[in-house]
């Protein structure tokens, strides 16, 4: 017995000894293929993710990742943490840090990881937490070998494979193995495999995806999102569970049906008192749209956005009666509440899941848990109505660039359906500026300025009215940062929420606007709408050019010349016409002391081949040059 133990002990000693002394030659950073390192901040040396679907109530994810961090920007790629909540168990968690020669410098066991709430910066309360460690790099490059095992009760989300998880991340090899011993029906979708050498091997009850030697992806302006550029694999089970709630779905119809039945149905009861109030409120309205408008206003006045995400509450809205009493809720709660109020007046509306902010579609062909926000859809005769229920300020049926023009999941009692939200076209997004400008002999400029914004231009401008007057003034000083010594003498706003037009009326002055040079006075006629863009040049552009949203800007100024000066010749009208839009610049003499300035700019949204980027850049830089051009006034 004693002998046996001793032998065992020695074996361990040898093992440990061996481990400590080993300089893993594979971990030496000199082994990395130099072509991967160029332009990279970090290199995944090897990554192995095993998703083991044990049952519809249990999935285990084993992660082994060895990553070499090349510089300080690469630190964020270490990904050496795990998130958890009451339904997720972290079973294994450890990390070892190696220097560039592959020598171990630090080791973290599970107990060495720190634990904190993964506060999202918005919520009042969430139950998500994260275990992480703090490591201060002593030299670059260094390597982290991370290993974890996590068990999740919810199988509604199966970790997708997204090996190129960041820009400037090179990959030696990465694999993703899906084990499905109990043969639960599942769906797998390959995304953006084109141009990448991804191997897929299918076994009896497992599937493996493998990628190796991937050059880092570099971000570019006006380009598709990373998600649209890199290869990924999405997985979803047909039978699954979400925080204990079981589900079955194979397409959006059945997936939506499950969401409706399990997460939404029966959460819309309202106090009788409120129903009466709403009834009174809409009593005189005739159309569905008019009623909905009043109810939306009622919700805006009564509620505010407060996020509480606990347990299933991350996916299930608060009861409508709770929102009614508390006067707050998150996007789910407020949408559900609005839906309930509409329903009480016989108006059908649908809870709708969307990916807000970044323009990301809900994947039409792949039913799974997606999106990050909820809005409300009301089918109407000509055009659907879309309501953003978390804002007290947005006009009725105005979703702005937060959720416009993308595929969303509309959840109906009979099942889900993919619809596309409203698109604001170039002509819809229009601002027009009217200004009367007086130039003084003392170089001073005084101007009345009126700007009317519609469509997304409304969205991009209307929020200024909610700032305090000091900040409003600062806003204009920043907006026209090229106007030295700008004074904003008066500000007036008109916000027409029914026609969705925002008007800014300003009186501004600027002490040294014109420049006196000998007997000349130099004036830039385009005072207010100068193109300020500054797009970088690419020697070898990789991605297509994306102009996500178009717009039209028009300006018309009457410029009163300073007394004693006149204009000899006005520049010719300029016109630039490209596939990206149209630009015109025009000056005309009204009388000796007065000229008119007119500018028109239309940018057309669209996706253009990568070769077009340089043309677009030139188009904009040419506009910018013309916008900044001067005219010369001569002393009489």
């Amino acid at each position, binding site marked *: 017995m004693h002998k046996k133990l001793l032998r065992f002990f020695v074996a361990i000693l040898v093992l440990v000894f061996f481990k400590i002394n080993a300089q893993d030659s594979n971990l030496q950073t000199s082994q990395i293929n130099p072509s991967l390192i160029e*332009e990279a901040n970090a290199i995944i040396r090897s990554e192995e993710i095993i998703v083991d679907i044990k049952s519809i109530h249990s999935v285990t994810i084993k992660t082994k990742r060895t990553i070499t961090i090349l*510089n*300080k*920007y690469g630190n964020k790629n270490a990904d050496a943490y795990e998130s958890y909540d009451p339904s997720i168990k972290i079973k294994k968690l450890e990390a070892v840090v190696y220097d560039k020669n592959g020598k171990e*410098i*630090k080791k973290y066991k599970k107990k060495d990881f720190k634990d*904190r*709430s993964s506060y999202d910066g918005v919520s*009042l*309360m969430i139950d998500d937490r994260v275990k992480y460690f*703090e490591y*201060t*790099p*002593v030299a670059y490059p260094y390597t982290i070998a991370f290993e974890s095992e996590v068990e999740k009760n919810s199988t509604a989300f199966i970790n997708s494979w997204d090996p190129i998880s960041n820009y400037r991340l090179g990959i030696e090899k990465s694999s993703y193995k899906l084990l499905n011993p109990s043969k639960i029906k599942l769906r797998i979708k390959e995304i953006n495999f084109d141009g990448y050498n991804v191997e897929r091997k299918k076994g009896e009850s497992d599937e493996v995806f493998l990628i190796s030697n991937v050059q880092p992806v570099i971000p570019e302006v006006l380009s598709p999102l990373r998600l649209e550029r890199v290869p990924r694999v999405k997985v979803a089970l047909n039978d699954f569970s979400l925080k204990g709630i079981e589900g079955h779905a194979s397409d959006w119809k059945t997936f939506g049906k499950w969401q409706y039945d399990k997460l939404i149905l029966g959460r819309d009861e309202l106090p009788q008192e409120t129903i009466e109030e709403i009834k009174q409120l809409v009593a005189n309205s005739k159309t569905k749209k008019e009623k909905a408008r009043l109810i939306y206003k009622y919700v805006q*006045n*009564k509620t*505010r956005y*407060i996020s*509480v995400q606990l347990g299933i509450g991350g996916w299930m809205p608060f009861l409508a009666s709770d929102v009614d*009493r*508390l*006067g*707050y809720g998150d996007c789910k709660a407020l949408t559900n509440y609005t839906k309930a109020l509409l329903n009480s007046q016989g108006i059908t509306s649908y809870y709708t899941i969307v990916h807000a902010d970044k323009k990301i579609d809900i994947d039409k062909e792949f039913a799974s848990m997606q999106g990050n926000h909820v809005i409300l859809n009301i089918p109407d005769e000509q055009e659907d109505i879309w309501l953003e229920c978390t804002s*007290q*300020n947005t006009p009725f049926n105005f979703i702005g660039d937060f959720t416009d023009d993308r595929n969303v999941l509309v959840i109906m009692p009979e099942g889900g359906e993919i619809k596309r939200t409203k698109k604001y076209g170039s002509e819809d997004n229009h601002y027009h500026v009217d200004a009367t400008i007086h130039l003084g002999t003392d170089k001073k400029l005084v101007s009345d300025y009126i700007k009317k914004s519609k469509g997304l231009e409304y969205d991009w401008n209307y929020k200024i009215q*909610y700032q*305090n*007057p*000091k900040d409003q*003034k*600062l806003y204009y*000083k*920043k907006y026209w*940062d*090229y106007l*030295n*010594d700008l004074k904003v003498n008066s500000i007036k706003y008109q916000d027409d929420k029914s026609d969705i037009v925002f008007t800014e009326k300003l009186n501004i002055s600027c002490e*040294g606007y014109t*420049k006196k*040079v*000998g007997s*000349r006075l*130099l004036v830039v006629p385009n005072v207010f709408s100068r193109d300020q863009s*500054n797009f*970088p*040049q690419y020697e070898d552009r990789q991605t297509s050019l994306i102009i996500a949203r178009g717009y039209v800007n028009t300006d018309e100024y009457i410029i009163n010349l300073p007394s004693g000066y006149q204009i000899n*010749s006005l*520049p010719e009208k300029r016109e630039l016409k490209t596939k990206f839009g149209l630009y015109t610049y025009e000056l005309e003499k009204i009388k000796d002391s007065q000229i008119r300035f007119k500018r028109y700019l239309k940018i057309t949204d669209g996706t253009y081949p990568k070769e077009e980027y340089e043309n677009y850049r030139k188009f904009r*830089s040419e506009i*910018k*040059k013309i916008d*900044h*051009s*001067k*005219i*010369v006034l001569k002393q009489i």
Partner: protein
Amino acid sequence: MKNFYFLLAFLFTVVISLKSHAQEYKFGKITKEELLEESYKGDSTANAAVLFENKKIYYDFGQQNGFRIVTEVFRRIKIYNNKGFDHATHEIYLYKENSNAEKISGLKGITYNLKDGAIEETKLKKSEIFEEEYSEYNNQVKFTMPSLKEGSVIDYKYKIISPFYYSIDKMYLQNTIPIKQLKTVVQIPEYFNFKKFTTGYLPIQLKESSFNSKITLTSKTRSGGQGFTPSSTNFSSRDIDHRVNVYNITSQDVPAFREEPYSGNPDNYLSSIVFELQFVKFPNSKLENFSTTWEAVVKSIYKDPRFGGELEKTSYFKEDLKQLLKSIDSPVEKAALIYNFVKTKMNWNEKYSVVSNHGVKKAYKEGVGNAAEVNFILIAMLKYAKIKATPVLVSSIKKTTALFPTLKGFDYVVARVQLGDKYMYLDATDKYGEPNILPNRVIHGSGRIISENGSTRLVTFRPKTPSLNRLGIQCEVDSDGAVKGKTNLYYKDYLAHNFRLNYSAESQETMIKRLKQKYEINTLDNYEAKGMRELGKPVIERFDFNLDNQVEVIDDEMFFSPLLFLRDKENVFKSEERRYPIDFGFGYSNTMMISIKIPENYEIVEIPKSSAFRLPENMGNFVYRINKTSNSIQVSITETLNVPFVTADYYPVLKQFYSQIIEKESDQVVLKKI
């Protein structure tokens, strides 16, 4: 320039009580007028206002727990519009340490709304209050008030019971929204002696009084139980009479606090009052002294094993040091070698601290440490090499400037070294640091040095001389108005430091991209950066450029600013008024030398006038000189800001100064076709 500390001292002024006729507020009792109020009287831009804030802080004695501090808070907030809704969410942090923890009790809240002319109340429910572990030392209690509408009034109150009887939290007397009426009462038994300090620009009314009180102690004595006498328990109680000192702080119409850019730590300007414990003296026991003078503070920190003890250790580096110094004798060389060695070997873990956390040995071994550990190693090595080096306790930019002698006023350590009759500051946490070139986090703060005789002195780290910058362009304009030329950009001292800090890890490609963006240059070739790694020397950037957007051709004339892309276009100071000082950290002097050759078939018809202007009290100046020959223009410009710190009363002239510079730099040259 007025001294910063003079200014702070000036802020101590406590305005003695003015009698006021204040409205009475009680939790749960509100008037219709408050609900009807549509905007705040003194500040119509306020989205919400604290109508009343009442804090009562007192000592409670229990025989089991001893002294505890009870803080009762009652706040009434008016929400004028939906932008003020955030003020209906409140967070309370409860401190904990070992097994002691602050506790909250009696949290109650009510929202009031006006409905059909009647007051409607909605109570905050228990289920709407959340408590969670926020960090190792804090729990957090959070709630948001129900049924909030524009015009709502909310009341909430709670009580915090703290076992940390020696520490009274800093009391803020100002908020980001206006406060109509503020009442704070602090009651402290005579056993505890506190000193008071205030910050901010606002008058504070403080009234002192006292009253008699007593603590009743109950004791239990058992008697008998021996022999034939039955045992019995007697209860007796004893009253201890004492005085309670009362501090009444009241304030009305406190304006909202707004942060301003370039002002360092805004907390330095926010109105507050701090009670700092001086000593504790219980009846029949010895006086227990807490920090009283800076000297005592320093003494106490040297006694702390995590400070003095760690500074003494030498065994861990002895061998390395021997290797490093070999036979070098010159103290300057030794100091430089050690400083570079520690800078290279040690890596700062971005933790601010005035004491060691895991010990210098461990830090040294791993090459990672907090600010104290890294600089302790530096100091200990220097001392071991017989160089005079002492620690300087620092209040970094993150710390509110310490107003009274307290250890809590410091969060960072740097080294002060004496070489011959020269002194310099070193901070080994900063890879790009140099002697007397310290990181931003240090220069925006202040320090306290300890002389050999044990006395201490306040020091600032802001450099006395401006950092230099020399920018040069040599170029020629062609007959189409395109400009071709060479540029030299030369940065010294703090400007070189910041350049290295920002760009050392960047690739050449990124550097070129950055310059092209910044200066709007079409083509940029032959880029080189020199001196990036040669600390102590200037950093130099050189490149060739082509521009097509600087010269404007109108008819037969050309117009351009002779500064080309070096022209400053935007004034960083936009706000019309300013309450707090402007803290640049360091002064600077920019020199620009530009030489422009004009195209052959053109002549110079106009050039800007040479001119100069200055700021008062030699704070700064601007000189613009221009010369021409028949085919070239030479411009030389110097822009200097001598002082790193400017008080708010100079803000208008400073703003004007920059505006004039921008105006002058946009002056145009005119060329005419011959």
